[in-house]
């Protein structure tokens, strides 16, 4: 179990451009953190760095409480953003099942995700037929179907309607109550109590 994520002195470069440097924050279990910043300031890159997908040029990202911080990183996080990895030609149910199985969840988790994200009417549709909001809910289903401690959410609310935002807010509250951690890149405030960090250029 992760007790905290500590980021210090972080600098990330994309190509020739230094996105930010000396970024630091600390996120404890049961806390959410809203990451703000202008378009292109590096919010998505930061999330990907925390997920271990992108190597920062300086600084450290430590998962405290994890048995083996480096080995466990990929399997401790869920990264959900615009590029969700879902395949247009597959049905929502097929992709739902794949996400759950691949990320370590079970059939029970799939049923729970369908219920909690109101995915029932979408299951037989091809992913390419889904609207942006429907597709985002399908991607978010992995949060429920394969429980992991750290959620890295990139603009999670953006494509969702008011009712689905409430659904997601409820999921987030439940996750925090269970000792989970949430790091979300947002433009609008999160609908739950959260610390704030701004990436300044």
């Amino acid at each position, binding site marked *: 179990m992760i007790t905290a994520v500590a980021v210090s002195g972080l600098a990330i470069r994309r190509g020739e451009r230094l996105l930010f440097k000396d970024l630091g924050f600390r996120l404890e279990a049961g806390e959410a953190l809203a990451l703000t910043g202008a378009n292109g300031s590096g919010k998505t890159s930061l999330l*990907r760095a925390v*997920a*271990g*997908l*992108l*190597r920062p040029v300086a600084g450290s990202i430590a998962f405290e409480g994890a048995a083996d911080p480096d080995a466990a990183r*990929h*399997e401790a*996080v*869920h*990264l959900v*953003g*615009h*590029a*969700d*990895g*879902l*395949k247009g*030609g*597959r049905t929502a149910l*097929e992709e739902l*099942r*794949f*996400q759950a*199985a*691949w*990320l*370590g969840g079970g059939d029970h988790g799939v049923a729970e995700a369908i219920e909690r994200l109101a995915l029932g009417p979408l299951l037989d549709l091809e992913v390419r037929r889904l609207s942006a909001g429907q597709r985002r809910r399908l991607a978010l289903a992995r949060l429920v179907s394969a429980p992991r401690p750290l959620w890295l959410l990139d603009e999670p609310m953006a494509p969702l309607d008011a009712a689905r935002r409430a659904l997601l807010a409820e999921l987030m509250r439940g996750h925090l109550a269970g000792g989970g951690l949430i790091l979300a890149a947002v433009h609008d405030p999160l609908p739950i109590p959260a610390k704030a960090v701004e990436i300044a250029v």
Partner: protein
Amino acid sequence: MRPLIALIERELALGWGRGGGPLPALGFYAAITVLLPLAGGSDTGRLAPVAVGVAWMALALASLLSLERLFERDFEDGGLDLLMTGPAPLELVCAVKCLSQWITTGAPLALAAPVAAVMLGAPLEAAPLILACSLAGGLAFAFVGGIGAALALGSRRGGLLVAAIVLPLFSPPVIFGGAALQAGALGTGATGGLLLLLGWTLAAVGLSPLAMAAACRNAVG
């Protein structure tokens, strides 16, 4: 095991479904073998000696064509991120993708190869050896080609890059398989060439995933 089985199932389903599955590669293969007699004359006496070699070379080219986009879709749509946050090492993921590619495209091509060769005038007895070479060679092509596909990620004109990177790595198996097929045609024993081809295939299956995974990490990060 469950995550890996889920991944294999998905890759196979995508491989069959994506853009007509093996059909584009098979179509390309058929085009080469049909156009050759049209372009070079249909005299059996001239075609028969090169039939086996042409069938073999066309297989390498058709494999190359189908490999170009092995990782591209996953790179662009976030699929690689999803695969990298799974429980299996990226090396294994890459191996699964290549294996699925071989099953969905390489194996159908391998089945087409003896048919094409016989059509061009090769003796019927050569068919089993062509099939064996095509199956083993196709597996090597799939894994070696995956290196090129992974290295070309994120670059423009990736197709050209894939061809440039992969061609030198395709040459040894083409030579070994070609030697086996020639020896088979002359009746001098194809075992040596076939064993060399199998050795290259094994090395490709064992080592390519390391290179592919490193290239994918580099492209993603």
